[in-house]
């Protein structure tokens, strides 16, 4: 913590909400920041998908750019969305979170996530969900400190073969009892939106544990 504090470059970071007016600079900076933690970059469509529909749920931490005095650079970002989950509860989803390495340990990510949760809560979210790699202890701790619980573990969820936890936070009473629409795929296709694996297209719609191939 002491070394991290020493590195803290300015007294006050500027936390702002995304606006499309500066999309060119913001998106480029965001991609750079987020891609660092990924083996493969997200395509531009993934960013557009979120920002075009839920730009107001994206928050950024900015700091003075030492290389270009008078300008700011992005040092942290959170990207989220809000949608009814399978026709049931209104689910806020935190899709991406990144903080520049030398700014970690300063509570920036926590602050960004809080801003996103507050914004989603303001839009009536019943629950907030996200996934995080099980090896990413820093992220797990961050979310669990905020009251998230692990709801399930997702086997080999990421490209690198690592598993994930789905973390969920209920924001109001009775969320668990909200019925979702019936989904014949049960545990598989229904979670498509959150990125769970998809069966081969040839798979017939059959109940759980029936044959799924040949």
């Amino acid at each position, binding site marked *: 913590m002491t070394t991290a504090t020493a590195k803290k470059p300015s007294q006050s970071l500027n936390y702002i909400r995304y606006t499309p007016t500066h*999309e060119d600079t913001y998106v480029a900076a965001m991609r750079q920041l987020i891609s660092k*933690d*990924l083996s*493969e*970059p*997200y*395509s531009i*469509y*993934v960013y*557009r*998908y979120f920002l*075009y529909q839920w730009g107001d749920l994206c928050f950024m931490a900015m700091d003075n750019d030492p290389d270009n005095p008078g300008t700011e650079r992005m040092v942290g970002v959170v990207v989220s969305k809000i949608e009814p989950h399978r026709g049931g509860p209104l689910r806020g989803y935190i*899709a*991406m*979170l990144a903080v520049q390495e030398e700014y970690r340990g300063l509570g920036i990510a926590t602050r960004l996530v809080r801003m996103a*949760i507050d914004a989603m809560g303001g839009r009536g979210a019943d629950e907030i969900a996200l*996934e995080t790699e099980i090896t*990413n202890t820093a*992220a797990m*701790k961050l979310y*669990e*400190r*905020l*009251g998230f*619980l692990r709801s*399930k*573990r*997702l*086997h*080999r*969820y*990421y*490209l690198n*073969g690592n*598993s*994930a*936890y789905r973390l969920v*936070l*209920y*924001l109001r*009473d*009775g*969320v*668990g*009892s909200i019925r979702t629409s019936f989904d014949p795929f*049960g*545990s598989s296709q229904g979670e*498509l*939106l959150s*990125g769970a*694996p*998809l*069966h*081969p*297209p040839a798979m017939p719609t059959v109940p*759980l*544990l029936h*044959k799924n*191939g*040949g």
Partner: protein
Amino acid sequence: MLPNNQGRAPTTRIVSQSVVPRDITEKFTQAASKLKTGQLVKDEYFTLFEAVGALEIMDSKMDSGYLGPEENRQGLDDDYDVLRDLSPGEVVGIMDELLCHEVAWHMGHPLSQTLFTSLYLDKLLWPVPRSLEDTHFGRGKLSGDKTEPELVHIVLRAYCLALVKCCDFVHTRVTREFYYEEEDFSTQLYNRELLSHIDHGVIGNLLNRAISWIDEQDTIDTNLNSAIKTRLEFRHEFLFSLQQDTNILQTRSVDRLETCLLMLPTLKESSHMGQPVPEAFSWKIQRKLASTVPPRPMVRISLEDALAHLKRLCQDGIHLNQILDYRGPYNLRVAIWTILSRKPQPSVYIRSLIQTIIMNKSIILGTVPVKQFLYDELAALVLPSNILLEASLDETEVPSDPRFQIAQYMDGFVRRFSQPFVDTFRSACLNRCRIRRTVCHTIVDWDNLQMEDLDEQLRTLSEEPPLQLPNGDTTYSYPLSSWAYHHKLIQFRLILQLGFELSIYAPEELPGMYWYLSHICSTHLGHIDRIRTFIVSAAQRSRPSLAKHAVLRKSFLLFDRLTMQIVAIDALAISLHALYVLLSRHKTLPTAASSQAYSNDQFRYELRMKPFLHITLPELVPYDEYSREATLQGDSDGIVMDRATKAIGEARKAWEATLSNGPFLEDSNGEKPNAPALEEDWTRDVKDTMRACIGASIAIETVKKAIIANRKKGDGAQPLNLQVTIPEAGSKARWHDWWAVPQVQPGMKT
């Protein structure tokens, strides 16, 4: 973080020859120029999934056809000559590299990043060979242009073809069963085939020919010669092992796998003689594969890891032989769950094979019709020598006859329940995460299936007399609903226990979760008592014959067995619950949530109970009651300490008894499964649980001492001077994954 996995998007590829491409660049540019930056034009079908699956043209990391300035010079193709001479050491090197890739594929990596990076395999498999004659390395070259070196043509070719055929057997088995694409296995073949139409016997002959050829070579170093020979022989045995597949049900033969197992050490010992030929593998081949996924790095696993994986595969395959003799549903359940709970979990091939063996075409273990299987289960648990099961044996065809009607109802029951019942076995074959998720879903199905009205109709037909309760009320046995409820309670328990195994629960949830586990156990014990009561009273009414007496005795033995197991789980859960209550009361339990957390305990309870919220029976425990029970509200520390000590004592005794009972029960013919390897696994598991009991006893004593010490000092409200860590599931200090026993040590504070 959102997963970035384009591979998960469905791949639609137009293969029709009639497609005429036309250039739309200009039209597209024109249309796009009318958009503002950042504007997204999409229809409702463009979901996050499509966004993640989309590729950026001209981005070297996504666009598989794009060549950066660097690559441009090198081109898309590799210039490796598959017809070049290979030294014997290089052949060994290539074989071992191929084996690593094969196992990496078994582990779930796609062919594109593993085997399909081999230029030798590429030559054999593309274009898709129509016959065996097409499968040689000189394809496409003018005849007489260049001859194939014998070591390559006779030896390496045979090895490669056999390897591909092995993959064909694995692919066929896995895709016929239930698996999760990418989680368990990547089935994508990129429009290629794995020699599925070529008979394995022909390939076996090629291997034999290669073995004879290598035997005749006297110019090759003896050690290298035998290294090559061993690899060919291993491949031969492995090919025929995989060809055995479900034939094991008839042959009961695992000789081939046993031979493979014996050969693995030799492969390891001679591997140093291999000379790597890295240029024979190229990630660039991916650009030629029918895939929307951009080229990804080759997956590399060590030969050591590959051989370790193969060793487990062989061992698991050999031990499969011990689940094949049918000795009733109870024993089958123990055997299946025991073999599939091995750590690491058996490979996806073995898990798929077990799925088929459990049930194929409505036959269990290749011999027992599913109806018989379900009836055996019902007879053992709820209907020993009961008319409901006997009715179908009659040949009564008079529709007004109650026995005829009973048989009709029971047939309907079998139709509805046989699949869900068999799935309680087959679900063990999923990966551990999926087992829990699946059971969270099936539990709802079982709740819906529990049909009291069917029991009522059957009761009228069978003229079941009511049972008088001590309070004067009367009730009936409801055998089928009782049975369904029994299974539902097992599933409740499984969801909780897998929750511990998968590290789902935060430390502060542990008191509540162990309370809930014990609550489910005591509900279950009460339920088994109820079933027993009805069977006793039915027996007293009918004065059963000697034969029926024997059947009843078997049922009572089963109840005793089930009761003992649940008592053992219950007692350990009670003691851990009490222990965690003490730690929590004295602010010594680590917590994941901070004081500034969103949400509250009640919402978190609701989230935790999500799988159970819509279940009718057992009823959901209201939050207030849960909160009182989970914290042992109103009980002094002294009472809680006593509770922990008594319960752990009882747990130790009950687990001792469980251990001495052993895993299996005699079936109706008085026979037990002969399954020494599974018995060993089962015993180890129980012994690990007993170690958890000892660990818990020690922790309880340490906590008691600290509480008493605090009290003596008069600062009973202060946190205990203890360091508490909860070992992660899978770690050595965690005696058993299902039991999160805290390690409690005197703290550093003075």
